[in-house]
């Protein structure tokens, strides 16, 4: 196997991907902490009642926070999944297909989640 050839074929270097992976992981930790803390400003089960959840979605700042969480977790999670999958088999076709599949999965989740946040916020698409 020629390591140099493979490196040249990749859009990003693995170190750049891992930088994104670590940064999204650390950032997600903070924003998810804020999200959880928002659950304890009132009794936990009350914060999950329908009216309160809808109210959260209608707050533009909270909607932005949810969108940030969605993007960070999707990037971090799907890259983690890609890493696990490319370790299972070592051939270029498998690696390429797994990379493409995880990118498609990531975009789909972000798109569907964004749609939900936008609808929840009351905006019309």
């Amino acid at each position: 196997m020629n390591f140099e050839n493979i490196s040249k074929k990749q859009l990003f270097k693995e170190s750049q991907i891992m930088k994104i992976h670590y940064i999204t992981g650390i950032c997600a930790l903070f924003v998810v902490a804020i999200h959880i803390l928002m659950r304890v400003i009132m009794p936990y089960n009350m914060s999950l009642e329908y009216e309160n959840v809808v109210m959260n979605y209608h707050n533009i700042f909270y909607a932005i926070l949810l969108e940030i969480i969605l993007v960070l977790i999707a990037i971090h999670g799907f890259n983690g999944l890609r890493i696990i999958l490319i370790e299972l088999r070592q051939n270029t076709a498998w690696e390429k297909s797994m990379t493409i599949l995880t990118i498609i999965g990531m975009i789909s989740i972000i798109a569907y989640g964004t749609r939900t946040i936008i609808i929840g916020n009351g905006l019309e698409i």
Partner: protein
Amino acid sequence: MGWKFNMSGKDNSGDHSGNDNNEEKIHKKELNGPKKTKSVESKSKFTDKTITLKIFRINQNNEKSNSHFDEYKVSSKRWTTVLDTLLDVKSYQDHSISLRYSCRMASCGSCGMKINGVPRLACYTKISDLISEDDPDPTITCEPLANFPYIKDLVTDFSQFFNHHRKIMPYIQNTKNDTIDSENLSEYVQSPEDLDKFLQFSYCIKCGLCYSSCPTVATDMNFPGPQALSQAYRYFIDTRDSANKTRFNIIDDRHGIWRCHFAGSCSHVCPKGVDPALGIQLLRSHLLGFNKNEKKIAKLREK
């Protein structure tokens, strides 16, 4: 490397029997010696024992032979190493056992094998360290190193391991200093502090124990392994070398340095006290752009 394949089945009794008298003398001297530490006293209680040596047998050239374990009874003294017992069995009980060895003093790295499930050098592992005094039937199991293809019995194929080692270009490359033209010959200047940064990694004997214990290598054979990666760090941090970019391109790959799970088993099994896991982490931090000012890290782990 000075590696030696002992697959001929020749009798080594000439070498072996000559040592018995000397061994007895040394044993008496040690027992009667006036100064003893606590650990030496406890070890001196180890009496001569007959142990059961279980050896993994396989022959890749013979399709009919199935892998199995053969058992041999061998007597051992306090200072007997696993390699001594294996050679004893080969000389007096079964000439067909294949093993690789050379220096018998943990310098060549040839006799690496899994002893009681842990990758160790056979010449550096004493029987007395593996068995307890109370065990009525002590058994020691010798298997070939994991993550290496088998050849015969305890001999494994190191081709892939050395290919990974070769790929990271483990030699000084310097375009600035002229080492060919004798008139312009320049000196590689290096301070003791700079030397300390890579010194421990230069003690690697390429025995393959770290590679054998690595869980990532077990699943991903394209992963260079702890040995190659720690050597990449050894040359990266060497101030005389200027090929960092080339080496980074080689290891910064899908199956490169980022696939290390940091289990740390490589550092745990290294017989020379090298810490490959540390080298990998430092190299990673350099790839991420941290750790520009490397501190000296020459402290070897105490075994």
